[in-house]
């Protein structure tokens, strides 16, 4: 199949970027979206042009590295899917596909489609861990955790830190990501001891990083590959209030 790609090219964080058009032939429907970009890059190498920079690692939807904005949506036209899980069969022969990097003040563009998501790391550093020494793995039933709680924590822990929530949010709010990290730990007994400090420190860092505030448009939970529910944000707000009153 034949596709016209319009891809954001930007030399570095200081330069001004622009969309460049590439007509690409020889694609097949069973190629993944990243394989289509690989195919394009191979052609650029042969033509001695600079290849397009984009990120990936696992190519199976678990590492969260591959996020780009495809045809006006985070990770492409489907809900709840990473870019690496998107395949060319989702497009028609002759389509034009616009590819842009995540856009947010707190995610500066490094090059082409790669953005700097270290703001997420700094939020994590503020408390997405427990500070006690855990030693070797304890007996699995030593700490009883009801099934419903374990499931809830697991659902939140599924966040892969891809940044689609920030990318798609009109306010570039990191509330879905931050709430997933907070609720994951705060709903488990191991996380309880530091629950109030965690909420305050992590939400504070989120603000310091320059992310906007959540206005519940709901775009994030639609684009999130892990379908993290937006109710996590409401729960984080409740925890924040609780920390303020009791913490």
């Amino acid at each position, binding site marked *: 199949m034949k596709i016209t790609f319009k891809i954001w090219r930007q030399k570095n964080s200081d330069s001004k970027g622009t969309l460049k058009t590439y007509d690409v032939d020889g694609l097949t429907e069973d190629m993944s979206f990243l394989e289509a970009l690989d195919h394009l890059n191979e052609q650029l190498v042969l033509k001695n042009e600079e290849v397009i920079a984009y990120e990936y690692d696992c190519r199976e939807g678990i590492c969260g590295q591959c996020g780009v904005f495809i045809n006006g949506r985070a990770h492409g036209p489907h809900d709840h899917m990473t870019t690496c899980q998107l395949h060319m069969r989702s497009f028609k022969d002759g389509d034009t596909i616009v590819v842009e990097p995540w*856009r*947010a003040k707190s995610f500066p563009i490094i090059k082409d489609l790669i953005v700097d998501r270290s703001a997420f790391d700094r939020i994590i550093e503020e408390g997405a861990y427990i500070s006690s020494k855990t030693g070797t793995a304890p007996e699995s039933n030593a700490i009883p955790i009801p099934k419903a709680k374990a499931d809830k924590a697991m659902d939140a822990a599924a966040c892969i830190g891809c940044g689609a929530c920030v990318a798609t949010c009109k306010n570039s709010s990191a509330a879905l990501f931050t709430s997933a990290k907070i609720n994951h730990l705060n709903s488990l007994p191991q996380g309880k001891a530091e629950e109030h400090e965690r909420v305050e420190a992590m939400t504070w860092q989120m603000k310091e990083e320059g992310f906007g505030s959540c206005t519940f448009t709901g775009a994030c939970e639609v684009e999130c590959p892990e379908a993290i529910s937006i109710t996590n944000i409401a729960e984080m707000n*409740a925890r924040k209030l609780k920390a303020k009153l009791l913490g």
Partner: protein
Amino acid sequence: MALNFLFYRKSLIALTGLFLCVFLVVHLSANAILLLPNDIASELYNSYSHTLRENPLITVVAYVLYISIVLHAVVALLITLHNRKAKPQKYIMDKSQQNSSWYSKNMGILGTLILIFIIIHLANFWARIKLGIGEEVLLDKNGYKDVFSVTYELFQNIWFVLFYSILAIPLAFHLYHGLKSGFKTLGFYHKKGLRILAKVSLIYAIIMGVGFGIIPIVVYFK
């Protein structure tokens, strides 16, 4: 660190917004009197209005109301500007209509329309009745200020009828999203509760939109 205005300002929008939502219920219920036949409506409306003006508790609530409107609008403006700055470069291709509603993304614009409405609305009634600016308000046969006639005359002007009725539409959309969002901002996260809240918000917004929208038209054709 905990006491930072910026950190909690979103709750301020939600609190003032929800208070305004409660006020609107009371306000619409009172205005529904205008739907009754003119002679009954006139007496009821004027005596109700008189009772409100004489009640010291209502005077306090009225000040809370003014402060809420100003706080809500000012903080909403600050947040909207801050949120815009968080995304300095927009997407060249944007299909966000596939993942979120237009009204949830344009609360600031809807709110600004409501603010324009509120200013004109206060100039029409509050300024004339409470501040005595403009044409004097006459007394009815019970010796109460004839607020009914002020309303009735205003809505003989088709332009005011259109203005009031059309602006009930952005009001309804702002309320629909605002009610749902406000509870979540304040930390209500019960899943089933939120599903009920979404339905309640829709019904509330329809009642407010249709209610406020239809009264001027009914009065015009009476």
